[in-house]
């Protein structure tokens, strides 16, 4: 029973939430269109959460993802205003993400600063850099190439649905693709398995000859690039870049990964579990908005549901440990 609750508690909770929305919103919730909306809405968060999963696998975390996302968006937008082509600007922005991630990695893994402190400091710095580059302004309008904004509005045509065309939004496609990449890296590659070994028992990994310092450093690179991708997706979706726009991503991404961890057998971070965590957050937002639940009540409910899921799994773990 306890074991069952621990493993399936969160999953059952998710199912319950979906059923409730389905019953209360019979016409609008369980529709292909609504689910497309949800996937598109959570696409940026998915990318950050999935990238965050990589550092959390080695037992660290990264508070700077939000400001890195903002910075990447600003970098691309500033380069657009300077006349760079879309691919060139995006490449530079992703490069900034990679470098920013590796800086975090060096601080944590080589210098030995606690992840919380190191990424808190870089949070401030990356955010400051975004403000400096943009002059604190929102960059939008003519400065943003049409193609860039259009990307977020269009998608992969997949036939038609009733009278309307059925289109899988590019943002969703991108999130799926990145999830697949990180899945392959973490679950199927030797590299990923080494990261899990480090997270599971860093000392054992070191004694077994795993290059802990180096691998831990590289994990931050993924998170940096992921944050940058999410920042660019965000900028495309709002067809503008603002030095604060990534702010909300960090806490939500961490919450999603932790929520996902309650789904896995040993409480490890896993890519697909993180995606489920993101979906829970997205579905709650969508369903509660449609039910016209006050935004503030929604916040409290989301917090409560996270706590419930995590408590059940924590208590289950305790009960098992006690036997």
């Amino acid at each position: 029973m306890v074991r069952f609750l621990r493993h399936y508690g969160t999953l059952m909770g998710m199912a319950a939430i979906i059923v409730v929305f389905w019953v209360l919103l019979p016409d609008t919730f369980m529709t292909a269109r609504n689910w497309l909306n949800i996937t598109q809405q959570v696409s940026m968060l998915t990318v950050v959460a999935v990238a965050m999963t990589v550092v959390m696998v080695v037992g660290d975390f990264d508070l700077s993802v939000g400001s890195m996302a903002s910075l990447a968006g600003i970098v691309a937008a500033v380069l657009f205003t300077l006349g760079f082509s879309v691919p060139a600007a995006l490449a530079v922005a992703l490069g900034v993400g990679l470098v920013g991630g590796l800086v975090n990695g060096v601080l944590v893994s080589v210098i030995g600063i606690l992840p919380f402190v190191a990424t808190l400091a870089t949070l401030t710095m990356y955010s400051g850099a975004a403000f400096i580059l943009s002059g604190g302004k929102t960059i939008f309008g003519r400065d943003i190439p049409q193609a860039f904004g259009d990307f977020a509005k269009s998608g992969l045509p997949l036939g038609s649905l009733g009278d309307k065309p059925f289109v899988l939004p590019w943002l969703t496609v991108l999130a799926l693709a990145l999830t697949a990449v990180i899945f392959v890296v973490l679950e199927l590659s030797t590299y990923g398995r080494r990261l899990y070994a480090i997270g599971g028992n860093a000392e054992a990994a070191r004694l077994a000859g795993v290059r802990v310092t180096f691998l831990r450093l590289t994990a931050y690179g993924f998170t940096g690039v992921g944050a940058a991708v999410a920042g660019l997706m965000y900028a495309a979706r709002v067809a503008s870049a603002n030095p604060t726009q990534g702010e909300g991503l960090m806490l939500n991404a961490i919450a999603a990964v932790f929520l996902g961890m309650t789904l896995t057998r040993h409480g490890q971070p896993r890519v697909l579990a993180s995606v489920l965590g993101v979906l829970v957050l997205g579905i709650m937002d969508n369903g509660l908005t449609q039910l016209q639940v006050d935004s503030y009540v929604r916040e409290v409910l989301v917090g409560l549901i996270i706590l419930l899921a995590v408590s059940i799994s924590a208590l289950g773990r305790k009960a098992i440990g006690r036997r």
Partner: protein
Amino acid sequence: MSYRPLIGNPMPQLALHGVVKTYGQTRALDGAALELRGGEIHALMGENGAGKSTLIRILAGLEVPDAGQITMNGAPVALPSPAAAEGLGLRFLHQELQIVSALSVAENMHLTHPYPSSGFGLVRWGALRASAKAALERLGITHIDPRATMGDLGPGDQMLARIAATLVDTKGPRPWAYVLDEPTAALTGAEAERLFAALLTLRAAGHAILYVSHRMDEVLRLSDRVTVLRDGRHVSTMGRDQVSREQIIQDMTGRDFATLYPPASAPTETAPLLQVRSLQSGILRDIAFTVNAGEVLGLAGLSGSGRNHLLRALMGAVPRQGQVLIKGAQLGHGPAAAWAVGLAYVPRERRAEGLMLLQPLADTVALPHMPALSTAGFVRRAWIAHLVARLVQTVRLKAQSQAQVAAELSGGNQQKVLFARALAGPPVVLLLDEPTRGVDVGAKFDIYATIRGLTAQGVGLVIVSSDLPELIGLCDRIGILHSGRLTQIVPAAGLTEGALLALCYEKEVA
């Protein structure tokens, strides 16, 4: 599945000379030497802290020696990294059981080795499992599923899987030497036999095995040569024909037991201080014994017999049923209640269970006695300083000041901090779990002297130790634990190490 016999160099040979390694003020190795040849089982012996594991970590490329030479087939080699050691065909099982509980058995077995993978670096899971299965079968193990999660296995099976990991066949350099640091510590007799069979097969195929064990019988039975280290120095290397139990002990300790264990003073009175009746906890069943004033009760038993758990149950650190009386009064639950009535405890894992490594040692000493060292909830620092100053002298603790942190002390002095803490009460009954583990010879003698001093004052002691001569030398009576039951209590006088070991094994043999 069979082993690939060694082709090419018929007699690979690895040698170390004059190896020195210091950690802070501790000289772990001070001129150690070792020679390992293909086709032999070579035992590495020495007291706790003699430097065995350090030597092995140097071989594994995990530590770089301060001085010394390593040669392979006569040519000097460097071992800067684990990869280099693997490249020389060396495989390792390190002392502390190093597992990643959340990963599968197969993955744990490939921590050191590259996973079988396709061109894109993707893991080939089938090949990974097959490789793990093959390695397990070399030990004759079929009951462990490579897909199982490591954390779900029992400690014995975990150890077997880790041992099998050294036998994994990889594409890389051919392994020829297997280095195992206390592999049998967590194994049952039957499991150990399987390991021995595999080791003999490996030897027959021309491989070398370097093997650390504190179990004298195993060593005498299996090994072709024995090298003894003492205080980081090479003492002797003996062939099968020269080796004897007495000689090994003589080389390991370099001294007479008479000088190591101060004489016991006759108990002054026989008031029962600690009475235990029908105690149950964890695997413990129906434990009953009494400790009188000035008496030392030893607890002996095989690994996993419940010695450690018994002390924790007495302290109230784990739930227990049954009666525990201190000076005739029922003991309450929880460690606070135990300390309050003078039941003091020196835990086994001093770093994990005893010390606050980065806090002033005086704070650690005072912690369990806080109620007596404060008024109205405020700490009386002067009282603490006074108390600690006295205790530092009693246990002959070498520290710069009372504010020094435990992390900066040597292992023996760390242990003395915990002794000082246990004496601060002062104690009525003192529970000691492996009190001299990782403690050097001098500090050991200080600790023994302290124990004698306590018995003279009428304190009752319960001592758990895997060091059998120590138990015999210190205790008045020795209780034998077997699978959670106290099978008998025998007088220590006249007992030999062999006889005591036989008692520990008795039930299993019978």
